[in-house]
């Protein structure tokens, strides 16, 4: 069952500069569904629009970002709710109890002059009446932290007194305390060193196993996707260019960009020269015509320079937006064999 449907979502940063309005097309015609209990990974180089997409999913669109079209529909208790047109109060109600959010755990996401416990209090207090029964709140937070293996002392700490990993765990604890159905995580492991990273991801994973929530996980790190995601969507220049179950995307990436992404992953024992995409991602304010990837694509043809490929089915549960891949794939047919390993 789908818990979230994104239809033709467009969210642009409207910048006025040198007297002109320029649209930075951060989320450009994105359609996506998120299914119950799955971990959907969204990948892509930095600057491809994935964080903006996540913000839009959260309904947190504020100038200069503007909603330019499309819908973000949540299914909650048999109701369909478009979060972008929902009144503020209802959206606030939806938050944390149904949908929650794990930001990148940098120093700046926690109020530097408040103790962690106070942050818990205001986050939980926004949704539960904790005044009535402060003891229950206390025990809720304590047991939750213990469940996550976090020391209770953390509550007395100030953000700057915690390590990056601890802070990230705190944000995860904050996001999961009300057992939301859906967790949107934005680069939860970036800026952490590898060992800590693994711990954080494992934590998320454990929570998911236990609470059976759905997770949308944004990270540029394909290795993490391999580790945790059930399905992966690849973003490039504001669009989803490929979407498939994780095994399939690693086994048979169709889009040349995806191939580069996977190709650049280190492999144990492999000492060969790693490929990476030549050139740099295009400016979202000034996209090339046709397929946005064509300037970096080794196989680009003339059609790629003229037309924008649409996301089309290229196998079971596998969709890709590439003229060449679609062609190639069509040749192979919708052979099932390739889909599963």
């Amino acid at each position: 069952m789908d818990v979230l449907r994104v239809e033709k979502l467009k969210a642009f940063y409207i910048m006025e500069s040198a007297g002109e309005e320029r649209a930075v097309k951060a989320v450009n015609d994105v359609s996506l569904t998120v299914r119950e209990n799955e971990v959907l990974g969204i990948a892509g180089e930095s600057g491809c629009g994935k964080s903006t997409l996540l913000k839009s999913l959260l309904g947190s669109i504020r100038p200069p970002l503007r909603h330019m079209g499309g819908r973000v529909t949540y299914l909650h208790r048999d109701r369909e709710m478009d979060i972008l047109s929902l009144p503020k109060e209802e959206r606030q109600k939806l938050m944390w109890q149904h949908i929650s959010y794990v930001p990148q755990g940098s120093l700046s996401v926690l109020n530097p002059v408040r103790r962690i416990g106070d942050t818990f209090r205001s986050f939980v207090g926004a949704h539960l009446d904790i005044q009535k029964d402060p003891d229950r709140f206390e025990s809720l937070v304590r047991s939750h932290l213990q469940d996550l293996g976090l020391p209770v002392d953390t509550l007395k700490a100030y953000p700057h007194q915690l390590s990056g990993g601890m802070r990230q765990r705190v944000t995860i604890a904050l996001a999961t305390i009300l057992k939301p159905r859906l967790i949107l995580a934005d680069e939860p492991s970036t800026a952490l060193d590898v060992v800590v990273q693994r711990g954080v991801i494992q934590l998320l994973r454990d929570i998911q196993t236990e609470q059976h929530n759905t997770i949308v996980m944004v990270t540029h790190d394909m290795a993490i996707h391999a580790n945790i995601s059930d399905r992966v969507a690849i973003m490039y220049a504001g669009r989803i260019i490929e979407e498939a179950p994780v095994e399939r995307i690693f086994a048979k990436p169709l889009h040349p960009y995806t191939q580069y992404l996977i190709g650049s992953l280190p492999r144990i024992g492999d000492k060969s020269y790693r490929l990476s995409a030549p050139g740099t991602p295009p400016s979202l304010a000034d996209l090339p015509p046709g397929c946005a990837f064509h300037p970096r694509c080794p196989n680009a043809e003339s059609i790629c320079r003229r037309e924008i490929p649409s996301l089309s089915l290229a196998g079971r549960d596998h969709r890709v937006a590439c003229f060449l891949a679609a062609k190639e794939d069509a040749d192979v047919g919708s052979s099932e064999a390739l889909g599963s390993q």
Partner: protein
Amino acid sequence: MAFLKRYLLPRIVQYLVVIFIGGTLIFIIPRLMPVDPVQQTLERITIQGAFLDPRAIEQIREALLELYGLKGSLTEQYITMWRRLLRGDFGPSYVQFPTPVMTLIRISLPWTVGLLVTTTVLSWIVGNILGGIAAYYSTRRWAQLMENIAMLIRPIPYYIIALALLLLLAYALPVFPVTGGFSIGRRFVLSWDLIVDILKHAFLPALSLVIVGIATWFMTMRLLVSNLLAEDYIVYAQIAGVQDGEILYNYAIRNAMLPQITGLTLSLGQIFGGALITETVFSYPGLGTLLYSSINTGDYNLMMGITLLSVVAIATGVLLMDLIYPFLDPRIRYE
């Protein structure tokens, strides 16, 4: 202990040095003035006492120099001053010789402190709250209206605001008393009437100070909060569905308050210089006019007494602020 030795002690030494430098400056600067306290007194005597024989003037001059302690060299006077100050004695006023400076200060101080502490704190609180709200809801019409009003009031010279209020509410619309601290002939017995009376007399001066104060604090706070609104932790809390009120108070205003608290301590310290223009416009008793007249009559001791009071108050405020700051902002630690 390490804190004491590495931070507190040097800080206190610095505090004392600063007061010493301040005291020295306000010893030197008045003595560069062309005004001569003995001559000032002589002029008052001449006004009162018909005409004087030159021999008489010489005699009086000598007597006054002796009495005022102005006979020695500057260095001697300087040393005398510190020696006296260390005993907590500001010496006699020249204009009201031999009334001690402390007596004169004690007469004016309660009025100044009463008026200025109230108005400073009140305008600080109201200005900061309104400024925070206006920044948080900056797209609302009423917030913009508030900002526009503050922007218009802030640059008007205080003197004009005070005078306009006086003309408006004591002349065109004679609601408030013109001058003074309380009604004449009223017995100083603590009663509701006396309090109302004092409040009524303080109302216009206080209003003028509060208007300007609110506008000033409002502007700074608005700027501070609107800078904070882009901070990640506020966006995060908003996403988490935390109510606006909670974000406004516990995230925006609270964090923006830190520099404002420093500003408040400084303003509170400055109180001890009095509010010259307020006192002049509303004929309100206070240290400001006392200080001004001491400057004009060359009453060095009185001048010294009031300014030193202010210097010590501000320096202490800054010191306390530095010591308290770690408790307000946990990021700051003194090693």
